[in-house]
């Protein structure tokens, strides 16, 4: 009887484990079938191009704002603020900011626009994304620097090296490959993040309808959302979703190539 129960439990486990995979496979088939049967109109092509360019601009601008800050905080937390009260408080803040729902960061952008800040649409979208990304980057950086063995730092200190020199010449070169990959992974996550942009886009549309000053904000995730929502969802949403998936896959592939190059590079 025990053997039968064990077999049944194993079968149920495997069935439950395969359920998301099977449903996802059906979804992929649906996407491919939709792409084969859908007609790409001139409008959709133009919208996809605009959204792709907008996504790249948003990503570059938010990376410019968030990467230096995130990496600097990560270095501080891993190397200098491990046990101090200030370091612990900063770590707690970073942890709490990293778990806030992304849609809340869109509200920060809306606050700025409501205050009448004359922001370029790219920066209006990039600022919430940067605010969302820097705690993720800081956590990634802290984790990467903490992986470098402590014994190496102690050996350098015993030889008379200053902490900053130890970091610059010993820790940093070892951490760069993993750090690069970690940052690119965060940027991939940011590329797929739609909630703050959908909120901002909706607000900008509403502001335009009210006769307030407004700009267009184009991005791939927001385009997927707007083409998939509404009472008459068409096939175009599926095509935009495929484009977004292709962009994510391309960025992931780029990450792997980058990692191999950086890992192979001679270290000082």
């Amino acid at each position, binding site marked *: 009887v025990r053997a039968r129960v064990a077999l049944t439990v194993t079968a149920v486990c495997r069935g439950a484990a395969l359920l998301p995979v099977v449903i996802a496979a059906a979804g992929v088939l649906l996407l491919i079938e939709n792409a084969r049967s859908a007609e790409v109109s001139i409008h959709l092509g133009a919208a996809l191009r605009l959204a792709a360019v907008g996504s790249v601009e948003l990503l570059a601008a938010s990376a410019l704002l968030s990467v230096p800050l995130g990496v600097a905080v990560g270095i501080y937390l891993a190397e200098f603020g491990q046990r101090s009260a200030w370091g612990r408080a900063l770590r707690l803040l970073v942890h709490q900011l990293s778990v806030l729902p992304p849609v809340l960061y869109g509200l920060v952008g809306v606050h700025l626009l409501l205050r009448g800040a004359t922001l370029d649409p790219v920066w209006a979208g990039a600022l919430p994304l940067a605010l969302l990304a820097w705690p993720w980057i800081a956590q990634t950086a802290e984790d990467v620097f903490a992986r470098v063995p402590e014994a190496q730092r102690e050996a350098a200190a015993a030889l008379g090296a200053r902490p900053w020199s130890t970091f610059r010449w010993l820790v940093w070169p070892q951490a760069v490959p993993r750090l690069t990959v970690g940052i690119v992974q965060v940027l991939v996550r940011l590329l797929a993040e739609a*909630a703050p942009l959908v909120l901002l886009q909706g607000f900008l549309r509403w502001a335009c309808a009210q006769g307030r000053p407004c700009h267009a904000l184009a991005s791939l995730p927001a385009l997927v959302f707007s083409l998939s929502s509404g009472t008459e969802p068409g096939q175009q949403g599926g095509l935009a979703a495929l484009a977004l998936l292709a962009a994510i896959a391309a960025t992931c592939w780029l990450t792997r190539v980058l990692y191999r190059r950086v890992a192979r590079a001679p270290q000082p």
Partner: protein
Amino acid sequence: LDPAAPKPETLRPQAQPRRSDNRQAPFTLRLSAALAAALGVAVLASLLFPSLIGLPTAATAPSDALLLAALMQSTAVVVSIAVSIALLCGVAGGVTLIELGRRPWGQRLHTAYRLLNAVPSVVVGCVAFGLASRSLTHLVPVGVAQRVVASVVLGLFLAPGVALATERTLSSDGAALEETVRGLGAQPSRVLRQLVLPGSTLKFSALAFSTTSRALGDALIVSLAASQKAWLDFPSGVVMDTLPSFLLDSGATGAVAMNRTAVYLVVLVLVGSSITLKGVCDWVQSEAEGR
């Protein structure tokens, strides 16, 4: 051999060097840390106390409290169904991954979960509500409660992440002890039931809290489900929105500018519950590691 003679220097017990001792961060790093802290506090303050940055806030109206209550009830229903499905499928997936181990099917399942974990929620919502629900309505003309559909889709979306986390949790617990028991001839399923699972209860609790936090933060799937009224019937008068999806729609409806009190009440609840869940999750995790 004079007992009063001082011991050689090398035999004295040395104090363990502490990592942060005698380390002074450069000015730029300290400045970055201070800037980041100020930025984080400013973000939280602008979300929780908008009057601090000059935005006017009205007094709370009864309608706002009613709306908040309805949204919280809807959120509780969606999140509890989604988390149940995610934990059921995810934990089963993690256990299966451990059991299959390095066999080819295990590797394939692992790759599939990793790929699914990288798919953004907007794509899942698009496929589920933009394409699948339309096709299914053509095939089976029956109405489906939107809230349940949204919860199921959200649960399945979260399941791969839970499966990978379960695998990490189970494989990190007492690997040496597990190998010893296996070496003594115990079957893998017995090791899992009698050794690994009982020791991971607290870690599974932490996993449940973190899954709840993720389910609470997702706005897009519910919002996309709410927009498909033509395809999925549901009783009129039922509030479909959850807390985050209400915020997501507040931009397009203008509520973010016109009904600020309701928006800030929702923000307050959302920030408070996210921070609480994270705190509880961290506490349970540290308890589990302490044991």
